[in-house]
């Protein structure tokens, strides 16, 4: 086989590997969320992606939406006044900034179950209690 022939074969093989990657991406995009979360994930991919996003936000100089005044967390007594969907959204925001909380939530998700409304409110309260303790310790 000539050198050009070998290179052509190698190119075809690389194109084949690209096509395989494309097929895997198609499957990833079409896999239901619960199935995806139930798959083994030694790297904690969700946390890695969030960390990449945080670096991108820092590099772009744009403020995090979650830290804007309108997104400030309500006082502890107000947590249960949130609608269930708003409470879940609030929990996602907090978990995105709190790896410890993310671990707790990811563990529940990996177990293949959706958090109940009560669990969401409970986690929000625990986050806020911890936040209040940290503020007292920091003298803030």
């Amino acid at each position: 086989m000539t050198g050009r022939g070998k290179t052509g074969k190698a190119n075809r093989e690389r194109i084949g590997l690209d096509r395989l990657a494309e097929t895997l991406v198609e499957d990833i995009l079409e896999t239901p969320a619960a199935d995806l979360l139930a798959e083994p994930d030694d790297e904690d991919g969700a946390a890695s992606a969030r960390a990449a996003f945080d670096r991108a936000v820092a590099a772009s100089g744009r403020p995090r939406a979650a830290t804007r005044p309108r997104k400030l967390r309500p006082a502890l007594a107000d947590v249960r006044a949130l609608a269930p969907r708003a409470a879940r959204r609030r929990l996602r925001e907090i978990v995105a900034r709190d790896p410890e909380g993310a671990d707790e939530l990811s563990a529940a998700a990996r177990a293949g179950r959706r958090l109940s409304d009560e669990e969401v409110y409970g986690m929000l309260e625990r986050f806020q209690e911890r936040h209040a303790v940290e503020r007292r310790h920091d003298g803030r």
Partner: protein
Amino acid sequence: MRRAGPPADNRQGNVRDEAAPAHRSSKQGREARGLQTRDTDPSQLTRTAIQTEIEALPDAGWLRLHKVARALCRHTGVDPDDLLQEAFQRALGGSRRCPRHIDVVAFLAGVMRSIASDWCKARRRRPEVSLTAPTGGVDGVVVRVLDRRPDPLESLAGEQEAASMHQAVIELFADDPVPRTLVAGILDGLRGDELRSLASLSETEFASKRRLIRRRIDKAFPKELKP
């Protein structure tokens, strides 16, 4: 691993749409709009809107993005976290705009595909250019172009690497003829109905086998596609 694949061809409809809307086909047109006016196109998410959408992604969305990055990087030597960060930066910076009718995860997957392809091509083809002034004066500036074309030994190593990755994937399914047939078909360039008919599978059966293939590759090659 230093080899890189050729450009992805963006065949997936929902992602291809974001990559080449009609009004963005001209580079000149993109530049003419400028940063201040780009956010006013009502058919596309503003930079603030896409940031908000990304920040509100559930766990599964973040995980999906990371898995896409890993799938695109496994055979290219690109770091998945770097690829993700670059895709986020382009979305936040407005150089890649998400049409409102496109799911943000699918949009970011398309951006990653495009970046991975560009990086691989650049790694293979672009020579390294530097300006040096040995005498310290402006007049003495010399443009040095480092020839990055692979020498015959590098070419041979690259060919062997591509071949061994091919072989490793095929061997992974040695015990299961249907996935093995599908993988061989994909590597040979078959897609869609042509690929399904190769193994006489219904759409549901095909989706199931495709998932099996992905999960087995994920398990066997979590980071790099190496035998």
